[in-house]
């Protein structure tokens, strides 16, 4: 089972790195990181902060875009090219196919984020003429960005398993946007009464909470990320993404391929 999932994951990774969209987005991310060094020349007192904010935002946004653009085609492309049928004639369970796709795209995103992070740290060392101890918290912020990718990838995969690529892209992006407002929704739910309170609270837990995973501004100020937050966010992302991937597997399992 592990071999089959690993093979599908590896093939997914190999296909993803051939996608031109990927390279364009990575180049844009590097350009943004470079631009932050120039932008620092026209401001006062925030050069390091601007680099961290812009660099990590670039890694986050472009990673989410990569997750969406590649994730929405994970299943639908295989169906359109009819390669899915070939795969499923092998002793590969449908859920193994879904899980393999998920890990393949996550591997792609992790490698991309790793490359962008290396570029970012090169820019940071150039700007600050070295690294400080507080820069270690930037790695925690990057880790949280990877957890965001995990959730976005799972959502894109879920939608890709039953809808068209365009629908999947729009809905995934919409969920990303709504997920950024989940704290506001929770605040609204807490202030509401009766059925509104319960409905709003339920929705606030159902939609992914991306604001909890956004520590960019905090690390830009040199604040450390508590170990408990790393543990809880990891648990949240793994459980949420796991639930969504399970849903994708169930939908795909019952999908009529004819």
């Amino acid at each position, binding site marked *: 089972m592990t071999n089959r999932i690993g093979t599908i994951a590896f093939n997914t990774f190999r296909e993803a790195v051939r996608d031109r969209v990927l390279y364009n987005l990575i180049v844009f991310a590097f350009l943004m990181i470079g631009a932050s060094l120039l932008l620092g020349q026209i*401001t*006062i*007192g925030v050069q390091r902060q*601007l680099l961290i*904010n812009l660099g990590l935002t670039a890694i986050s946004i472009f990673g989410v875009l990569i997750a969406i653009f590649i994730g929405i085609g994970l299943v639908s492309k295989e169906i359109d090219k009819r390669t899915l049928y070939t795969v499923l004639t092998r002793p590969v369970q449908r859920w193994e196919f879904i899980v393999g796709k998920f890990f393949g795209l996550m591997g792609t995103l992790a490698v991309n984020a790793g490359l962008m992070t290396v570029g970012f740290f090169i820019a940071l060392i150039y700007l600050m003429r070295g690294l400080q101890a507080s820069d270690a918290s930037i790695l925690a912020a990057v880790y949280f960005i990877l957890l965001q990718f995990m959730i976005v990838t799972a959502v894109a995969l879920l939608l890709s398993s039953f809808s068209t690529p365009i629908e999947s892209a729009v809905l995934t992006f919409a969920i990303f*946007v709504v997920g950024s407002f989940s704290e*506001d929704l929770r605040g609204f739910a807490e202030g509401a009464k009766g059925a509104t309170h319960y409905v709003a609270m339920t929705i606030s837990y159902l939609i992914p909470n*991306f604001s909890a995973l956004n520590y960019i501004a905090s690390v*830009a100020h040199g604040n450390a990320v508590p170990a408990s937050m790393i543990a809880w966010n990891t648990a949240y992302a793994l459980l949420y993404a796991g639930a969504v991937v399970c849903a994708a597997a169930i939908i795909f399992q019952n999908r009529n391929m004819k």
Partner: protein
Amino acid sequence: MLTMLAGSAGALREIVRTRPEAHLQDVLYIPSAKALKRMSLGYDGLLADIYWTRAVQYFGWKHKHKSREYPLLYPLLEITTELDPHLIVAYRFGATFLAQEPPDGAGQPEKAVELIERGIRANADDWRLYYDLGFVYAMNLEDYQAAAKAFERGSEVPHAHPFLKVLAADMAQHGGDLATARLMWQTTYETTDDPGIKSNALRHLQALDVDETVPKLEELVRQFHDKTGIQPTSFFPLLEAGWIRRIPTDPLGMPYKLLPDGRVEVQDPTAWSFIRRGLPPKTGEPPAKP
């Protein structure tokens, strides 16, 4: 293709030359901090940096053109600090930009106080904000009791600079005199790492030198006149009579001017932003008494 590109660059240069203000329009982009926070999708820190840079560029442009009005400065700073309440530099520099008299600033010290108080609410452990608050009260609003209270509040913050207690006591007792002002600017000069703030503090210290020296020179000339009956029109008679050892110069190295009515002025008033003495009288106003 290259020719067309070169042509477009030439056309753009002509546009910029014809409309120099076109590249920095007075727009807030989006005036509501709350709306911006929603639209930022959690990337508040980056938006705050962008709006802060916008504020710096806006102030720099207006200052370069000796503008006397900075209508967008406070809204830009308000949005910046709403997006990132911990962006200390926006409070500190922003207060300086707001408090100073035009054309060096917006001439809105009350707004500067409002901004710093917001900063203190969000960053109660940063003693530098209390120092800046006291500074604005003392230097721009001349409310020495409020300044003393601000320094006192700041002195109670853990790891606060010990000077705050000294300033609190000094302000309560001697608020408004040149020695206190010199102490505050000296403290600013010594406690900041920022080259811009250091340079500004140095200019203020030099201005204080002028404000202290000019009345002393005018008094010396008056005594010379009383003793000799001669009203000198330069410092040479005093030098020849041994009343002074050398021709007095200002901190920029330029000799002071002695006028026939006994007033002393700096050589180049335009080189001085902060002096109160040694300036030519404004048109229609009588000259200031020594």
